[in-house]
């Protein structure tokens, strides 16, 4: 398989912060709103550089989403920033009516998503957000895999017309993508070609998939790895092309099995090309306190879990 050197270790939220700042340099219509988490969601560089375009909303997320919708109505491109839980569950109806149904060009940017939020525990470990957001007609859902891809995704989101949910996280993660790689919303990223199984991963699970692919290679299994950084619209073409070649699938995501990546891919395959599918995800459980690494192991969000799932899927062919 291809080599994926470790280029750095950085948090995806910092990729968002950098991307937002760079997008704002290019486009004066970009504004940012934050609900009292400016440093945590890495909006501080933007806030410092563009104080007139930064709105500190306080701890009032429902109002933040509504204000963003109003700014977008007047032609601005608002990016809202808070934790994933407060970006989705707390404001689902505001997003549904004022943003998605009203088709406003609002970018909902959610940090600290998933179990790797860590020590704060289950109240803050959002594992349902992709499902909530992808159910809304017209909503685009983007989940980049590392710092560099989050930066590029943020730049792409800024240029994209329409409501977007952008999901990223708290801890430092391996950086393995580069600025030279294209990021196109809705176009899956083929990382390594294989013939025995398709591994579709999203977010931080993409790096785990790469590790799994190495282990599978040692076992004589040739896996294909595809990064599904856009959950919606799903790149049906890329998924079906891969599955028609490999005949079985593993999905990997830091999200509930209900409503996430596995759900989207399984729906597609049920309709178009049914094959065995195994999932690495959270299986209808709440999170808990712990370090990100401990939690990833405890909830089986690991390269070993992907390897086991792959072996099982191949056996079911």
């Amino acid at each position: 398989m291809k080599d994926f050197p470790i280029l750095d270790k950085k948090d995806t939220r910092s990729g968002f912060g950098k991307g937002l700042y760079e997008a704002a340099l290019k486009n004066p219509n970009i504004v940012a709103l934050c609900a009292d988490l400016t440093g945590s969601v890495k909006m501080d560089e933007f806030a410092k550089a563009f104080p007139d375009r930064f709105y500190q909303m306080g701890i009032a997320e429902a109002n933040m989403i509504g204000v963003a919708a109003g700014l977008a109505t007047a032609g601005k491109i608002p990016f809202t920033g808070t934790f994933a839980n407060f970006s989705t569950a707390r404001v689902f109806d505001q997003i549904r009516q004022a943003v998605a149904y009203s088709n406003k060009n609002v970018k909902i940017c959610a940090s600290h998503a998933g179990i790797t939020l860590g020590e704060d525990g289950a109240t803050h470990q959002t594992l349902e957000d992709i499902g909530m957001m992808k159910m809304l007609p017209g909503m685009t859902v983007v989940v980049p895999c590392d710092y560099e891809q989050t930066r590029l995704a943020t730049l792409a989101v800024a240029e994209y017309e329409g409501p977007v949910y952008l999901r990223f996280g708290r801890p430092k993660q391996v950086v393995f993508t580069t600025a030279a790689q294209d990021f196109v919303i809705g176009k899956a990223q083929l990382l390594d070609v294989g013939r025995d199984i398709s591994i579709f991963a999203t977010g931080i699970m993409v790096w785990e998939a790469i590790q799994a692919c190495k282990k599978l290679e040692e076992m004589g299994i040739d896996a294909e790895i595809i990064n599904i950084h856009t959950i919606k619209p799903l790149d049906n073409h890329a998924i079906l092309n891969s599955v028609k070649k490999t005949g079985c699938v593993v999905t990997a995501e830091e999200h509930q099995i209900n409503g996430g990546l596995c759900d989207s891919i399984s729906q597609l395959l049920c309709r178009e090309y049914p094959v065995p599918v195994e999932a690495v995800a959270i299986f209808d459980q709440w999170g808990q306190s712990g370090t990100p690494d401990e939690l990833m192991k405890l909830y089986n969000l690991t390269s070993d879990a992907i390897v086991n799932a792959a072996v099982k899927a191949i056996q079911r062919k």
Partner: protein
Amino acid sequence: MNVKELQDVAAQVRRDVLRMINGAKSGHPGGSLSCTDYLTALYFKEMNVDPSHFTIEGKDEDIFYLSNGHVCPAWYSVLARRGYYPVSELSTLRKIGSRLQGHPSLSHKLPGIRSASGSLGQGLSVGIGHALAKKADNDDSLVFTLHGDGELQEGQIWEAAMFAASKHVDNIIAAIDYNHQQIDGTIEDVNSLGNLSEKWTAFGWHVININGNNMLEVVTGLEQAKSAAHKGQPVVIILNTKMGFGVDFMYDSHKWHGVAPNDEQLANALSQIPETLGDY
């Protein structure tokens, strides 16, 4: 337009509202009739708008958001009578394929509408966002919003109220249709708003209290609100109104919040309101 002419428009809007809701066999007459005078004065006298060149952005013109979307029959009628679209379209309210959705929708592209509403409590935030954009763009025009009184039981309204005063969003004029009725009964019985003027004052707003069913007071109140704008504080007009205003058997009763008049009730109601501009 003078007060008599505005009253004539309001009378026709009330007839439209009753006929539209009767035609749809569903809808919300009570609140539509209580806010009719305010919407009429806004669109026919007080707001600077250009119905023939409607844009979503509304640069350099005054903006209106209806937050309590269920009273849209009155808004739809005012928009049509003001020239945003043909009055003949009013007969399509709530019917399949209509641009006049049961609650305002942006995806059906009805001129005059800039945001969906219906789920309560959201319009003040949206209006504040638009007002902030106008400030950023050095656009001196104003943003108006209308809210139901029951709607003020939603927490988001108070998030927005706190924020607007904190950030000196002084180019927004909110209005409350204080008819004291909601679906389950009187506001006082269901969940009292207490001293509403003092609440808004305590939140940092400039408060104006008027009789919202008296056209002269509505016009004067709006003039007063416009002069209070751009002075560092957001402005709210409390419209003291009656649900079902203009129709004796609907007057001041929560029972007409969301019930359509049948043909007999419609005839009775229309006999109480003169046809001034011609029915659609």
